[in-house]
């Protein structure tokens, strides 16, 4: 079925290009004529502009002459006025000239994210445990003291008229080791008809809201507890994704993914296609000032041994909702964002004790988690927010617990420009019945290079 689906897609693509090629020549000639006319008109307009500009320039020169010997502020103002006038002399040939003729002209867009933080934990991160939820992957508390976190380098470009490619490398420092990780390395089709996009390679799954977003676009220093506990911060793996956007007024996006199953909640990738997802997102506007986005997703994993010792089938259900309000729709100048995501995981399998593999025990049951966050954008440079995290442990299995971890976080962010920010965050985390971790974090985050275009 999947093969025939792909074949169908390809057929449609071919059919589309075929019809495009057989356009009536007469109409093309007419269009060309129209273009030539437009170019001639452009030329004429440019000539007029040159004339107007040189006239303006002459006038300015005359004025400058007249003002020789004038007092300093007056002179300054004249120069400020003269500058744009001088620039009005256009160079007609530059309209058609290519932007750049050197060998780097086709370099992909490069952007770099630098990030650093200082965290003060009241509880030693090494002593930290979360009732009902084993700590997995990067879903752990931040380091005590200074930390570089992850620096990111991203390259992206259209490959040709049918493909787009992106490579994102994450560089982290762990003790004496420098770790280079491939965060994303994928290609997207850009030429499939009817709103389909096929993606292949390594990428973050499109389940939920935050999962497909790079952490540098997050509003808080760390990911919600539910993301830490259920997908080890963020689920990404190697695989394929098919996505379709409906041709409707309402934004509707449907899709599915098939992954190797190497990363948590997968693990061993026995068949090399052990994790599958389905996702649906819808969104729209209510008036000019309100926008919303909501989704339902699921992730099914079959593993022979994941990082937390689980073997068997697990299914993650995820519901997400985002509401944004901003005066006149100017989201960067003020407004409120409210977001929540709800996680539920059903497990049916076995727990293998890493210390003694003979001590197998059944691991079935349901665990859940939620976060709710509200962000208040005060103006172009300040933003503050609150986040509430809650996890519900399963009442059976090796990590069964009556205690449900809770965390409160508040943050204040200063955004100097679109490219740099400083963030102060305080979290009050109660991961187990006996411990409290009060964390104060100061973080900087900057982006260099290509201007990023962020998702909603």
């Amino acid at each position, binding site marked *: 079925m999947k093969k025939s*689906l792909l074949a169908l897609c390809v057929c449609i693509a071919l059919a589309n290009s075929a019809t495009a090629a057989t*356009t009536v020549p007469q*109409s093309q000639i007419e269009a060309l004529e129209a273009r030539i006319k*437009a170019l001639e008109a452009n030329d004429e307009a440019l000539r007029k*502009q040159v004339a107007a500009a040189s006239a303006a320039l002459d006038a300015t020169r005359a004025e400058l002459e007249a003002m020789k010997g004038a007092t300093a*502020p007056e002179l300054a103002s004249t120069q400020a006025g003269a500058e*744009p006038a001088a620039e009005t002399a256009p160079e007609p040939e530059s309209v058609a000239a290519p932007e750049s003729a050197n060998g780097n002209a086709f370099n992909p867009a490069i952007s770099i994210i630098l990030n650093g933080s200082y965290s003060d934990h009241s509880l030693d991160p090494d002593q930290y445990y979360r009732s009902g939820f084993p700590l997995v992957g990067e879903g752990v508390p931040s380091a005590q003291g200074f930390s570089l976190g992850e620096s990111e380098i991203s390259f992206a470009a259209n490959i040709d008229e049918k493909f787009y490619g992106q490579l994102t490398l994450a560089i982290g420092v762990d003790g004496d080791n420098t770790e280079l990780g491939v965060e994303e390395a994928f290609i997207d089709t*850009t030429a499939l*008809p009817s709103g389909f996009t096929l993606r292949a390679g390594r990428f973050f799954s499109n389940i939920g809201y935050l999962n497909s977003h790079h952490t540098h676009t997050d509003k808080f220093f760390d990911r919600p507890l539910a993301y830490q506990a259920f997908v080890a911060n963020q689920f990404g793996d190697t695989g394929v994704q098919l996505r379709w956007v409906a041709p409707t007024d309402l934004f509707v996006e449907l899709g599915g993914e098939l992954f190797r199953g190497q990363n948590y909640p997968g693990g061993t990738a026995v068949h090399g296609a052990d994790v599958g997802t389905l996702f649906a997102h819808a969104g729209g506007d209510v008036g000019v000032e309100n926008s919303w986005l909501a989704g339902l997703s699921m992730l099914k994993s079959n593993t022979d041994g994941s990082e937390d010792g689980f073997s068997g089938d697990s299914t993650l259900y995820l519901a997400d909702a985002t509401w944004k309000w901003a005066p006149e729709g100017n989201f960067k100048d003020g407004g409120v964002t409210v977001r929540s995501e709800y996680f539920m995981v059903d497990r049916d399998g076995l727990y293998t004790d890493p210390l003694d593999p003979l001590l197998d025990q059944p691991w079935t049951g349901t665990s859940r988690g939620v976060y709710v966050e509200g962000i208040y954008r005060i103006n172009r440079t300040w933003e503050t927010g609150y986040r509430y995290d809650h996890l519900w442990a399963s009442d059976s299995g090796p990590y069964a617990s009556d205690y449900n971890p809770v965390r409160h976080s508040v943050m204040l962010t200063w955004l100097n*420009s679109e490219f740099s920010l400083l963030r102060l965050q305080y979290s009050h985390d109660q991961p187990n019945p006996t411990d409290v971790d009060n964390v104060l974090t100061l973080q900087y985050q900057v982006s260099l290079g290509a201007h990023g275009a962020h998702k909603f």
Partner: protein
Amino acid sequence: MKTYLLSALLVSGLLASPAQAKLRIFACEPEWGSLVHELAGDKVDVDVATSAMQDVHQIEAKPSLIAKIRRADLTVCSGAELEVGWLPQLVRQSGNQKVASGDGVFSAASQVTTLQKPAKLDRASGDVHPQGNPHIQMDPYRMLTVAKALTARLALLDPTNAAFYQQRLADFSARWSTATKKWEAKAAPLKGRNIVVQHDAWIYLTTWLGIKQVGALEPKPGVPPTSAHLASLVAITKSSNTLAIIRAAYQDPKASEWLSERTGVPAVALPFTVGGNPESKDLFGMFDSTIDILLGAAK
């Protein structure tokens, strides 16, 4: 079940792209939506992505915009990286191959010579645009050039209505040229006058009318005014016999009113695009209103 779902998706996808429907156009800014309306009337459907009260440098890639791009046959935008923070994201997320590249993409700034191309690219200079100042809509000559190029594009994408578009262009050009002469005559007293602007977005207007910009409230493009910079502007505004302090309709009036209070120079909001004030119902209204407001400040 999955099979049915996917086939249903495919079928609906095919049904949704009939061969000869009305051309659907996604206009990034209201001025281009208005221009499309002048040139194509009701032969096309137009979605305008932003309003005159929004800062087009800073638009979010909202789901509603993805849905609009998804159905577009052509995007008509200012270009010159004005929409770099949101348009590429919309196009990629929409999966619409028609507007990914080629004839489905129309950039107004690429049809004309842009001004203020920076000699040096450095973000320390603020939000600079490597391809020059993108706010070309404030020059009626450039607008006419764009209109001609846009007509050619419409004719290319929708050959059955090519003659109609040509006829509309001829009509528009005639009315526009007459109006341009009228505006120039009316604005003659503004020639040589000095203005202070909020954002460096008026170079095409000032060049056209021979107005001089003596200062900007934003110390660097896109950087919010600082008190130190504002203080230095007071002197220059006072000493330059400044006509007015200009901002676009969408901009926060606080900074320009602060300067106005301290200098006695009137602060005025110009429409900047169609819909920027009640008089700016179309492109003609936008220029009428702009010149009326400036002349009002001169009195």
